[in-house]
């Protein structure tokens, strides 16, 4: 069987977006985006509703392909590989660029099978290897102790926060290099949110994390870099401390200081 390779990431940027435009039918949702995401750092994307940040994050592993009438121009590269090239191998892309969604979406299977589903997709059959992956992933998502006695029960019976951490564990089960998180805590209570934020701080030690968030305090707490979006444009991207204290663009300043949005 052919090996599914990781992407080669040789410089400090894991992911680069160049001159990217995106249309839904005739509506241009993203305008000339240029961004570089630092390797093994957490980058947050903030901005008011409808500014295009979710659209952008969904383009990074081509989940937007599922949207009818969606058209992309420009280049998005993981390492040196253009993911919008015709011969791009989608399963390889999505294995290495994982995703966690806004609402927890566990599959209608047991906890165990939820985690094992990804590795099985990529040809791992051995029960002992799968067991190991399930345990590591759940430990990685800091929920092994909570679910180790109910691995064979339906994942749909978990609480919302547990479901979301399960989804993170599931995303990690295929050892992604980059993890995309689309408002992962917006449907959760403050305690679950705290747990997920802690988890993110752990995750970024080994992988690049890109997160869309509505919550500016969250970005301030956990992000190394922050990008501000408005009306389909990326206004400004810099170290989080800079964005929150001395933004160079007035629009960012207005948003951060609550004068707008």
């Amino acid at each position, binding site marked *: 069987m052919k090996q599914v390779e990781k992407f080669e990431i040789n410089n400090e940027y894991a992911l680069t977006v160049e001159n990217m435009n995106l249309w839904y039918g005739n509506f241009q949702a993203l305008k000339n985006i240029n961004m570089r995401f630092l390797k093994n750092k957490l980058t947050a994307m903030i901005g008011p509703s409808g500014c295009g940040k979710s659209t952008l994050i969904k383009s990074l592993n081509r*989940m937007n392909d599922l949207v009818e009438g969606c058209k992309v*121009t420009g280049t998005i590269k993981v390492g040196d590989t253009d993911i919008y090239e015709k011969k791009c191998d989608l399963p390889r892309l999505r294995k290495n660029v994982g995703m966690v969604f806004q609402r927890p979406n566990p599959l209608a299977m047991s906890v165990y099978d939820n985690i094992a589903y990804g590795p099985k997709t990529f040809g791992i059959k051995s029960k002992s290897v799968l067991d190991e992956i399930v345990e590591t992933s759940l430990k990685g998502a800091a929920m092994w102790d909570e679910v180790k006695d109910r691995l064979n029960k339906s994942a749909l019976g978990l609480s919302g926060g547990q479901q979301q951490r399960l989804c993170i564990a599931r995303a990690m089960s295929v050892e992604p290099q980059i993890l995309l998180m689309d408002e992962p805590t917006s449907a959760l209570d403050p305690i679950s949110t705290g747990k997920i934020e802690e988890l993110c701080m752990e995750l970024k030690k080994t992988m690049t994390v890109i997160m869309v968030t509505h919550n500016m305090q969250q970005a301030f707490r956990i992000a190394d870099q922050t990008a501000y979006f408005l009306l389909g444009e990326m206004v400004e991207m810099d170290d989080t401390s800079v964005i929150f204290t001395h933004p160079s663009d007035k629009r960012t300043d207005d948003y951060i200081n609550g004068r707008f949005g």
Partner: protein
Amino acid sequence: MTTFVKLKDKMTKENVARAIFAAFAAFSILAVFAIVFFLLYKSFPAFRQIGFFNFLFGGTWSPTNPSLDVPDRFGILPMIAGSVVLTLTSVSLGGVLAIFTAVFIVYYCPKKIKPVFNQLVNLLAGIPSIVYGYFGLTFLMPLLVQLFHVPQAYGLVSSTVILSIMLVPTIASITKNSLESVPMNYYEGALALGCTKNQTVFKVCLPAAKNGILAAMILGVGRAVGETMAVQFLVGSGDNYPGLFLPFRTMTSSIVLEMGYADEILHKPALIAIGFILLLFILAINLCLAAVKRNNSISGNKLFNRKIRESENAVSHYSWHKTGSLQDVLWILSCAVSLLVALSLLFIVFFVLIKGVSGLDFNFLFGKSGNAQVTLAPAFLSTGMVILLSLAISLPLGIGAAIFLSEYAKKGSRFVKTINLFIDTLSGVPSVVFGLFGMVFFGNILHIGINLLNGSLTLSLIVLPTIIRSTEQSLTEVPDSMREASYALGASKVRTIFKVVLPQALSGMITSVILSVGRIVSESAALIYTAGAVAYMPQSYLSRGATLSVMMWFFNSADGIENAPSKCFATAAILIVLVLILNILVTVVEKYFRKRSNK
């Protein structure tokens, strides 16, 4: 530098899967065209020798009368009149019964007995039409003779009564669905104005559901025109235009009653031609249905607009009255009608069961069957064989088609619209027409002959639409977020469908299997001339064999059967018990899966 990206999977394996599913979906189109083409092809000799207009507008049907010229023997105008008149009377009566019943179930039925009532309606739908017919023949007709002091009761009255009861579940269930989808705020809005509940139901909710009710009535028309086995017991077979107590024919009853002894030269082609004309009726009805479904917009109420304009000039002294007595009457009517429907169902069930039990003994059920004594043992085997093979054919086809429609197809594309139209058309084709097609195409053109294989092939076409629709329904209920989760892990579309989506749609697929089994068990018109009506144990799929329903027809029509009525009732009782079990199974399966998904 700028790359334009076509967002399409290029992987060949995926494309192959897509093509296969699309082919399965397109199969319904092929089936409908094949039915139309081969019936026309085989009825061509009749049209040529009789003349299309002589055939259609001739007033005499007397195929074996040597004193008439050939073109004068084959006139089907009385049959067309019979079908049309019977359809109109029974859809009117059945429609009224069904709408009142639906209103009762949705708005008035106490919560506790609502599931029971729904079950009763489903049961009403599940009883084989031959059982209804036999009930009419043995209970209703003698009753009518006594009540009206007529010499015999074949005719419009008896057939209308039975057929309208048979139409109730079809019309009621669709009416019920469209009433349930009337937005709650209509109801609340009317109540908030001070309308009584009855006024709200009959003046606001019922009119709001009128499109769905119209669709239900048209579907009822299709069922009524195509109904065969019940009708052939009740209309008699007189060469008359329909009358209250006058034996007449319908298109369907002539086909099924005469096919057994028709000669190959002209009589058989003429019967097939009747089937073709019947098919044209059904296609026209289906087009009406499609048009109604498309026209789902809410039209403005002209009366209301005018009243507003008048009131602008009115002097401001109104006097307020209490109204709504008409709606109170309607409320009482709807309770009475639904009670009547429920009681008639229970009566039919118990009548058949009580009459049937006395005829049941071990020897009749499982004894060796032959010329000397006819038993049901071969029928059990034949029924099982037919169920197995037709499901083995139609399940993969149907599930594949459903996968294409819900997972691959672009909603609203022309291809999908066409496929949907043809699936609906296929589900509206009467079983007697399927029977003719099986006889002509599988039996004659493919040289399969008349045997269980032919019967199973024919039945697999009949149950295909049920399987497609039921599976598609449960596939669309699987939330998109689960598909996204799978794709985001890098899983392919095929893997996502088979590992994530299909397992979730299991309950729908199992339901479709049970419904199909019910349909197969109760089918007789499509089997008599494809699988045969014999009393012998089938040796293989290449021997003839009669299912339980066909055995009822056999007992009633074959010569020299000892004690035929008691055997008919016994078989009918077994059929009803089977239908009851299948109905309970559907409920159990749905409950089980609902519980599992809530856990």
